[in-house]
Every structure is written in C-alpha cells, then in structure tokens.
C-alpha cells in the first residue's frame, strides 16, 4: 500500500507507448522527461530531504555523460562498463568534495556548489583533446546491454523508463528508511539531529553521493541516447533548471520531483509554438505556480483534487437532503 502511488505511476509509464507508439510527445519528449526525473529525484534527496542546496548538479550529469562518451569512443570500453565507471567516478568525486562543501551553509553552500559546477564546465570546454571542447564529442556508440543494442526512440523510451522507475523506487524506499529519517532530522535542525545521535556529516555526505550517482546515471544514458555530448548540455542553466524542477514539483516529496521534472519538460516543448513569447509565458507560469501553490505542483494538485472531491460530496449530500 505504501508503494501504491509508485505502481500507478509505473502502469501509466508502461501504458503510454503501447497506446501511442509513434507519438513524438510520448517517445521523444517522454525520454527527455525520464532523464529529468532521474536527475530531479536525485537532487530532491539532497535539497528536499537533507535541506542542502546544490547549484552545480549539472556537473555530475556531465561527468556521467563524458565518462561514457570518452571511455566508449577513445578506449573502446563496452558501454555498460563505461556506465559503471562513470557512476563510481561520480560517487568518489562527490564523496571527496562532500565533507568540505557540506560544512558550509546557506548562501556559502550555494556559492561553493555554483563554483564546482562552473569549474566542471570550464574543464569540459578546455580539455579539448579529451572532451572535444566546445564543439562536443560525436560518434558515441549505442548502449549495449549484454548483447542487446538499444536503438530507436521506442527502445530508448523503454530503457530510460525502466531506469527512471528504478530510481524512483530506490528513492521512495530510501526516504522511508532510517537514512531518510536521519536526512529529515538534519533538515529540521542539524543541531537537534546531532543531539539525537545522528552523524550529520555522514548523513549529508550520503545524500550528496547518492544524488551525484543518480545524476551520473542519467548522464551516461543521455550520452548514449544522443550519440553526442557537448558542454552546452551541462552548464549553469541546466543546474538551475534542475533546482527549478525540484522546487516546482514540491520539496521533500519524491513524486513532487517527478511531477516537477515532467511538468517543466512538457512546458518547454509545449511553449515553443509561442516563439517570441515563449520565455515570457514560461516565467509567468512558474511564478503563478509558486504564488498559488507554494508547496509545489504535486501537493497543490492533490489538495485541489481533494477540495474538488469534498465539494462534490457536500453538494451531493445537500441534494439528498432536499
């Protein structure tokens, strides 16, 4: 019952391509949305649950992508091995940086993570002999899963949907475990959490590492799916977009992050028809959500549904009295 929401979500994700196998918004935008969900759910563990901001998360996304891209093109590693190497590298780097960075709070933490993201981007641009520089790295082979080559939009939808469901499931279980409770305690009051015997530094590091590994996972899949990577896809704007997804969907809720990621992806794709006014409408909608649903889309929408339900029930009750 605890995972009822997850099963419904999984069923919808599985049914969509069966109903619309050739629809651009399902198989192409859906794949993008899936990657964003993985990133947002991971970042939500850090921002939403542990209460630590990160404005440099695109760096880990890029790390996974470039690890897969470089290892599979320049060293001919099998793609699955390159993916695992990317995850390990992201985890290690996150672990090394976590202690000094997460000692900072508030604005200082924001500054440090911002700097981290910018440095990572500069490396992607400057290390031309490895990364291909600003023009990017082309010719990344397709993902090979134990002999099965992932090819075509529909197959990619399947792979990324499965990866996304795995991440959502992991996250739902994680926040309901002892680690999750420790994270929320740190968010509530770091001091109080320490008084309760929680190793707060370790807890924060865990959240940082897990969210970095999730991001690198999305990055690896992204590199193989696009068959091309360039630093543009991992710059500051992307980091900010990821934070926007988490906040828009609703902090400290896995489905909030899912909701935010899907909403923002669809919004970007849906608004292109407005051309010049795209950015204007985009901004206005985001502002409206934050003003009228301060707790985020997910909570806002569920509350609205509840209210509608109870209004309907009440009016039915009144009619039965008449």
């Amino acid at each position: 019952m605890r995972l009822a929401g997850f099963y419904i979500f999984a069923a919808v994700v599985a049914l969509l391509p069966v109903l619309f196998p050739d629809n651009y918004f399902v198989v192409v935008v859906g794949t993008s949305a899936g990657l964003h969900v993985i990133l947002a759910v991971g970042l939500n563990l850090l921002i939403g649950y542990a209460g630590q901001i990160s404005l440099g998360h695109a760096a880990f996304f890029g790390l996974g992508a470039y690890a897969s891209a470089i290892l599979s093109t320049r060293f001919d590693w099998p793609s699955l091995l390159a993916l695992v190497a990317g995850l390990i590298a992201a985890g290690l780097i996150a672990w090394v940086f976590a202690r000094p960075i997460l000692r900072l709070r508030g604005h200082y933490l924001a500054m440090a993570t911002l700097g981290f993201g910018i440095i990572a981007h500069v490396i992607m641009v400057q290390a031309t002999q490895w990364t291909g520089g600003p023009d990017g790295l082309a010719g990344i082979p397709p993902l090979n899963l134990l002999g099965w080559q992932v090819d075509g939009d529909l197959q990619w939808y399947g792979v990324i949907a499965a990866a996304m469901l795995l991440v959502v499931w992991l996250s739902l279980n994680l926040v309901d475990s002892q680690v999750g409770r420790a994270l929320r305690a740190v968010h509530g009051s770091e001091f109080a959490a320490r008084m309760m015997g929680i190793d707060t530094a370790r807890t924060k590091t865990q959240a940082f590492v897990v969210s970095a590994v999730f991001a690198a996972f999305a990055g690896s899949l992204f590199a193989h799916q696009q068959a091309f990577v360039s630093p543009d896809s991992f710059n500051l704007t992307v980091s900010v977009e990821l934070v926007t997804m988490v906040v828009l969907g609703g902090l400290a809720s896995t489905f909030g992050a899912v909701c935010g990621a899907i909403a923002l992806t669809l919004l970007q794709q849906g608004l292109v028809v407005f051309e010049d006014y795209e950015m204007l409408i985009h901004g206005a909608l985001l502002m409206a959500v934050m003003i009228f649903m301060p707790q985020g889309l997910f909570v806002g929408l569920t509350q609205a549904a509840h209210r509608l339900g109870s209004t309907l029930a009440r009016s039915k009750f009144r009619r039965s009295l008449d």
Partner: protein
Amino acid sequence: MRRLLKVFGVVSLLLAGIGLAHAADPIKIGSFLTVTGPASFLGDPELKTLQMYIEDLNAKGGVNGRKIELIHYDTGGNTKDAVNFVKRLIKSDNVDVLIGGTTTGDTMAVIPNVEKEGIPFISLAGAVEIIEPVKKWVFKVPHTDRMAAAKILGDIRKRGLSKVALITGDGGFDKSGRTQVLELAPNYGITLVADESYGNKDTDMTTQLTKIRSSGAEAIINFGLGQAPAIVTKNVKQLGITLPLYQSHGVASQTFIDLAGAAAEGVRLPAAALVVAEQLPNTDPQKPVLLAYKNKYEAKYGPVSTFGGHAYDGLMITVAAIQRAGGTDKAKVRDEIEKTSGFIGTAGVFNMSPEDHMGLNLDAFKLVEIHNGTWKIIE
C-alpha cells in the same frame, strides 16, 4: 428537409476544402536555428532570410505549383534541444528537408538522427568535420574554417614570412580555427612560434601579446568572434607591435571596424564576397546575386551579414533541387542537391559532388585589408 440540405452543404464544403488542401499540399521545410542565446547574431539573420525568401517564393506561386511552409524551432544554442527538435520536425511535422544547425555543435548533434531517418539536411555551420568524412544526407553551404586558415597562411607565405604566432579564444569557433591553423601550417612551410589563448570574456590580452612580441614571430593570426578580436587588435597597437595582424572571417563585419577603431588599419582577413559586394568588378558573376540579396535584406531588416547569406544559399539550393527532382521524394532531392553545379550563391559558386558536400573552393573567400575604415580587396 431544409436541415438535411444544410448538413449536406456543410459536409460537401468540408470535403471540397480537404480536396483543395490536398491538391496544394505544401512543401515543408524544417528549420532549427539559434535565434536566441550567445549565437543569436548568427541565427537571427538566418531565420529572417528564410522567412523573407519563402514569403517571396510563395507570392510567386511557390515551387512546382506547391506553396512552401517553413516550420522553425529555436534551439537557443542547446544541442539537446536541437536533437529533440529535429526528431519533432521529422516525426511529428513530417518535413521534407532540413535547413539549419546554426552552430557546429547543433549540427554535429543531429547528424546521427538525420542519417538514420534519411532526410536531406543542409547545415549552416562552419566546421569542416560536418562534411569530412562525407555523410550521405548531410550538406553544408558556409565556407569552412579550414578554407579561412588556408587563405591566411597562403597570404603569409606570399609575403615571404614563415614564423607565425597564433592567439585564439576559448569558444568553439576559436578552437576549431586553431586546430586548422596547426594542421595546415606545415603544408605552407610555416612554423608556429607561439600559441596563446584567452577567455572570450577577457578585457585585456596584453600579457599574451607581450609573450608573442618576444617569440620572434613575423605575423600574428587571431581566430575569434565578437569583442575579443577587437581587443586583441587594439592591444597590438597599444603595445607598439608592428607585425602584420590577420583576423578570421568571424569578424568580417562593420561592427569589428567600429570596435577596433583606428587600430584596425592594415588588418587583413579572409571575407565572404558579400562584405565587399560593391567593390567587385562588374564582370564577377557573383556580383548581381550579392547585390540583390544585400539590397533586399537591408530594405527590410538593416545591415546585412554573411550568416543570413548562408541561409539564402541553403534555401535556393534546396528549392532548385526540388524543382529538378519534380517533387519532394527524399532520396531524389538528396541526389539533386549532390548534383548542384555552377550555382551562384552568396558564399561563392557551388559545385557539389559525391565526394564534396559543400562544393566551394578557395576563390570563394576574398582576402581583404582594412583601409581607411573600410574593406579593400587585396586579391
């Protein structure tokens, strides 16, 4: 009865409408350009040019009796969006050809999809790697950075100089230009004695230029876009360096002369003929094409740029190919684009072949020198 008649009338009107729409099924041209963001100075004139000429063609009755419909998405310079928009253009909008990919990054990112789906694609980006090795469905119309490097190195050799200092920024255009100079220099018997770089947002390059001054260089080459090359030019003057300074085609616009001011005197660069259209001899077959484009664009939008010219070349080559193919069959249109020969565009005279999907030769670039605040053709 009257109601039945009404319904009948409406239905027959609808059917007639569908029939009409079908008879004049438009030719769909899909486009993805960088109209916003840092590279918008490239994408904006490209989009305006496409819109202006498609409107024009439609006013004249379209191509093969069919109207042209332009479907455009702005990538904002984000390669991920470029990939998704190309999928959308192919799958959802069912376009017949693609013209776009303002930056090399955007173009390279979409090539795997274009090749897989099999749709003719004319790229508006510069790097030589787009067409080398040749890709079946991919063509490009702008000059390559390799041609610019070759033109510069050729002129340096002609002057009898052999030691060159290179200074470049950290952008894609800069990096790619640097690679081409490094690769080609030995062919021209030229050695590089310095290879300096700067950040494109830097406001002073005297440190790098001081190093170059003491390197024994006989000429300086600078590859860059925007403000930075103007700053380099000014710094060279301020340091009293009298070596010949070469800039790239990336600064072939009046803006550069305005920014660099008096320091720009004597700077040489390869430029598309569009920049010096008025100065071309009347015997030059390109002159009427250039002036026509220039006047048309400037009447509507203001100062012309070579980038918009690339969109003109791409569109006209496509339209001619569709006319010759007698329809929009993708394979036939592709074959016809490949057979483009003797087409006079703004970038030069195009002669494409199965081995060359650009079809321009070094003559397409004019070597110009800045003289009294304006361009002078050297050769």
